[in-house]
C-alpha cells in the first residue's frame, strides 16, 4: 500500500500533484536551471504576462546559497523544494480549492486553526509584485498565497493567483519531526520483486549535497569568475532580446539572478552595490517581458515567419496579376 502524505515526503509531492492535476492544472516538471524560487519558472513568470487562461502546477527546487548551513541546521537548506500552483484568471473559489489541498494531504481543518494573514509579495529582480497572505496553520506559515498584480514591470491584464507551498516544512509538520534530515522520503517496503526497499530519509538524499554546496557557496566559488559571468549572462540576455528571442533571453536572466545570489553568499557584494545588481537583473526582466508579450500576441505561423522558418503568404496585389 502506498504510504500517506503524513508518512512520506514522496507521497506528499504525489498527493499535491494529483490534487491540482485533478482540478485541471497542467502538471509540469521543474525547470532545468538553478533559480531562487518557483516564481522564476517560465510557467509562472512568463505565462503570467499573457492574457490567456493558464493553470499549471509543478515542483521546483529553489536554490538559496546564503541559506546553506553545511547540513548542520535542522530548519535551513540551501536547496529545497517548493510546490507551485498558478491559475489565471484567479477563480472565485480559490481559497476553498486551496483548503481542499490541505485536506488532500491529510490535514483535518476542523481540528486546527487556519488563518490568512496579510503578506504582500514582491520580487524586485523580476519587477513583480502581488497582494495576498501567508497561510498560517496553527501559527506555522505553510503557503504563500498571492494574487499577482504586476510582472516584469507590467500591470497584468488577467490576474493570476499563485500558491507556493514550502514542502519540507509542511512535511516536517505532517510527519512530526524536528529535523528536516530526519524526514522520511519513503518508508521501508517490499518491492514487487520481493526484495526489501530500505527506508530512505531526506538526509540520505540531500545531506551530502548540502555540505558540499555550502562549501562551494561560502568558500570556493570563484568571485572574479562569477562577477565576469554575471556580465556575460547580462550581455547575452540583452543580445537575445535584441534578436527578439525572449525565451532564451529569459534563461540568461535566470543565470544572472543565480550568479547574483552566489555572489551574495560569498559576501562579494556590499549593501550599496546590491541595489545596483538587482536593478540590472530587473531591467533585463522588464525587457524580456515586453518582448514576450509581443510574441505571445502572435500566431504560431507569425512567429515561424519572423524566425525565417516559413515564407509569408503571398499577398494579392491590387489590380491583379497579368
Amino acid at each position: 500500500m502506498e504510504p500517506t502524505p503524513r508518512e512520506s515526503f514522496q507521497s506528499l509531492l504525489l498527493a499535491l500533484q494529483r490534487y491540482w492535476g485533478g482540478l485541471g492544472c497542467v502538471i509540469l516538471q521543474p525547470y532545468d536551471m538553478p533559480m531562487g524560487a518557483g516564481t522564476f519558472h517560465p510557467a509562472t513568470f512568463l505565462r503570467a504576462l499573457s492574457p490567456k487562461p493558464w493553470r499549471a502546477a509543478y515542483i521546483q527546487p529553489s536554490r538559496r546559497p546564503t541559506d546553506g548551513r553545511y547540513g548542520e541546521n535542522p530548519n535551513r537548506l540551501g536547496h529545497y523544494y517548493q510546490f507551485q500552483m498558478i491559475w489565471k484568471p484567479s477563480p472565485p473559489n480559490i481559497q476553498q480549492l486551496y483548503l481542499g489541498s490541505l485536506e488532500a494531504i491529510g490535514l483535518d481543518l476542523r481540528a486546527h486553526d487556519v488563518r490568512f494573514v496579510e503578506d504582500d509579495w514582491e520580487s524586485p529582480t523580476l519587477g513583480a509584485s502581488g497582494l495576498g497572505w501567508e497561510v498560517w496553520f496553527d501559527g506555522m506559515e505553510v503557503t504563500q498565497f498571492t494574487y499577482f498584480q504586476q510582472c516584469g514591470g507590467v500591470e497584468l491584464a488577467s490576474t493570476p493567483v499563485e500558491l507556493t507551498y514550502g514542502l519540507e516544512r509542511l512535511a516536517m509538520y505532517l510527519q512530526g519531526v524536528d529535523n528536516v534530515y530526519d524526514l522520511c522520503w519513503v518508508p521501508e517496503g517490499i518491492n514487487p520483486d520481493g526484495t526489501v526497499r530500505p527506508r530512505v530519509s531526506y538526509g540520505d538524499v540531500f545531506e551530502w549535497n548540502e555540505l558540499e554546496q555550502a562549501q562551494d557557496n561560502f568558500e570556493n566559488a570563484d568571485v572574479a569568475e562569477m562577477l565576469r559571468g554575471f556580465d556575460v549572462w547580462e550581455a547575452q540576455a540583452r543580445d537575445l532580446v535584441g534578436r527578439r528571442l525572449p525565451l532564451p533571453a529569459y534563461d540568461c536572466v535566470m543565470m544572472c539572478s543565480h550568479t547574483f545570489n552566489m555572489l551574495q553568499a560569498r559576501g562579494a557584494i556590499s549593501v550599496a552595490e546590491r541595489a545596483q545588481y538587482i536593478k540590472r537583473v530587473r531591467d533585463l526582466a522588464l525587457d524580456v517581458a515586453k518582448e514576450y508579450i509581443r510574441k505571445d500576441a502572435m500566431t504560431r505561423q507569425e512567429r515561424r515567419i519572423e524566425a525565417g522558418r516559413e515564407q509569408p503568404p503571398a499577398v494579392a496585389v491590387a489590380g491583379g496579376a497579368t
Partner: protein
Amino acid sequence: MSVELFIEVRCEEIPARFVAPALEGFAAGLRKLLGGLLVEADGPVQVYATPRRLAIAAHVLAARPSVQKIVTGMPIAQARVGDAWGPGALAFARKRLGPDAGPEALFEHNGFAAVRATEGGGSTEKLIAEGLEALVLGIPFKKSMHWGDRPERFARPLHAVLCLLDGKRVVTTVAGLTTTDLTVGHWLLSPETFPVETSARWLADLRQRGVYTDRAERHTRVAAMLAEAARADGLTLVPDAQLLEEVVNLVESPGVVVGRFPQELLQLPPRLLIESMKVNQRYFPLFSVAGELSNRFVVVTNNPKGDPALIADGNARVLSARFHDAKFFYAEDKKRPLREHANKLGGTVWIRGLGNLAERQAEITAAAVRLGALTDADLTSLRLLGGVLKADLATLMVGEFPELQGHVGRLLAESEGYAHAIAIEEAWLPRHSGDGLPTSPEGLAFALAERMTLLSRCFIAEMEPKGSADPQGLRRAAVGLIALVLALPTSGDAASPGSLGALFALAGVPLTAALTEFLVARLRATLLAEGHPVDLVDAVLAAGGSDVPSIAARVRGLAALPKEELAAVRTTFRRVAGLGKDHTSAVYALDLLQGEAEYQLHVAVKALPAVADPASLLAALRSLRPVVDRFFDEVLVMCDDLPLRGNRLGLLRTILDRFGGFADFSRLGGE
C-alpha cells in the same frame, strides 16, 4: 417613517490594519450617497466588520420627496422658429422630460426656453440600486488589487454583496456580482447560507453561529478570554491594546489556546522572546505574578471548536524552531568577545561613500567622549564602550533579529563586565517620536553623538531629505536630536550647551547652515506638536539663535501663562514692537521724560536684570507689562512734538532691544 438599509460586503480576508479606515470611508460614502434621505434621528449609522465582511446599517426614508424645478435651455432667439418652438428646443424638452415631451411643455423664462422638471421623487431603492456599486467599490483601502478578469479593485477578491431595504433585496450588481439576501457563517464551522431580513437578525443569527460581527463585542470577548486563560494558569497578561486590536480584526469566531515552549529557552533574552511572540506570531506572552516571563503564551484562534492540544502544539513548534535558531546564534555569538565581533565592522559599508561601520563607530565614540562632560558621563566608560558600540551588528543574532540591535550588544557587554553597558542599547534611543530617552549619561552622550554625526555627514554629502524621500531617516534623527538636547541636564556641574553651533563645536562635528536650518525647522515642528500657539513659537524663533533648550523654555514659559495674561502680553508687546520697531536708536533723554507713567517706565526698564536666561527674562517681561500698559494709557507716543515723540520711541526701542533675544514681539498674533 424611516426604514432600514442594510449592506453586507463579503470578501476574502481583509488585512487587519485596513478595517477601521475602511469602515469610516464606507460610512462617509453612504452618507454622501443618501444625503437627506438618511434619518439619523431614528438611529445612528452602524458599522460591523470581521476579516471576511464589512457591513453597514442605516435608517433611511423609503422615498425621496419630489421637487418641481424650472430648467432653462438655449436663449429664446435660438429656440424659436417664427412663432413655433424649433427643433433644438424640442430636443431640449425631450432630453429633460423624456421622449414623449412635446412643444406644450416649453415656455419662456427670463429670455430662455424652459421646461418644468420634477427632481427627486424617485424611490430610495432606485437611488441605492444605482449607487451601490460605486459605494462598495469606493470603500478606501490602504492597498487594493484586481482579481480574476475583473477591472475593479478591492482589498481582496469580493465574494458577495447583500443589500436590503426594509428587508427586501435591492437588485443590482457590484463588480459583476448580483446582490443577494443570503449570507454565510464562519467559512469552516457554519458555511451554509441563510436568509437575512434585518441587521438585528443578521447580528443575532451570526452570533448564534459563533460569528461576532460587532467589533466592540468581539474586543470585549477576546479580552475576557485572554484574561481567563491567564488566570486559569495562575499567570498574568501584560495589556497590549495595539496587539489586541489587531488580533480582534484577525478572527471572526474567536477562541483561545494556551501553548508552551521548552523551559530552557527562557535563557534567551526576554525581549527577543517577547518580540518574537508578539510581532511575528501575534501571541500574548504570559508572566508570573511577580512579572517574570513564563514559557507560556496565549494564541487567539479563529476556530473555537478546534482541538486545543493540537493547536497549542503546532503554535509551540513554530516558536521552538525560531527560538532554537536564536539559541544557536546566541551561543555562537557568545563564543567570542564583543571586541572580536567589532573587528568585522570594517568590512561592512555604512552608507555608500561615507565609509564603513568601523569608521562610523570611531566617529560616534570620538564625538560622544567630547560630549561626555555635558551629560556627566564617565569618560573611561565611554571610551571602552565606544570600542564595541556597533559590534552587535556583526553578530548572528542581530543578523537574524535586526530589531534587537543595541539590545544584544548591551547583553553581551554586560556578560563581559563592561560598566554602564546599558549605554550601548540607549544609543539607539529615541527610535521614533514619543519613544523613551536614554536614562544613563553615557547613553545620552552616545545617542547625541550618533545623530549629530549622522546628520552632519549626510548634510555635507548633500544627502538631505528631498520631498518624502528620506532614506537615511534624517528627519527622525533630527527630531530625536532635539528631544535629546532638551533632555540634557540643566543643573549640576554640567554646562549648558548653548546654541547648536556651540553644541556641534563641542562635539567636534561640523554644522552647516543648511543643517542648522533643518534642525530649527524640526524644533519648530516639535514645539507645535506640543500644542503651543504658532505665533508664540514663531516669535521666539524669529528672535534668532539656535539655543534649543532656551527656545523651548521661552515658548513653554510664554504658553504656560494664564490665558488673560497671555492675551495682555500679546496686545501690549505687539504694540511696543509696532511702534518701536522702525525707530533705529535705542536712546532717550531723561530730561524729556514727562509725567509719572513715562518716568516709571524708565525706572522699570533701567531695573531690568542683565541676565539672559529664559526664566528671568520672562519674569521681567511679566513685571514690566503693567508699567507699559499704564504708559500707553497715559502717554501719547505719536505726539506732534517731534523731539518728545523721538524720545518715547527711543524708550520703546530700548525695551524691544532688551527682549530682542527673547522673542520678536512683532510676530505675536491676536487670540
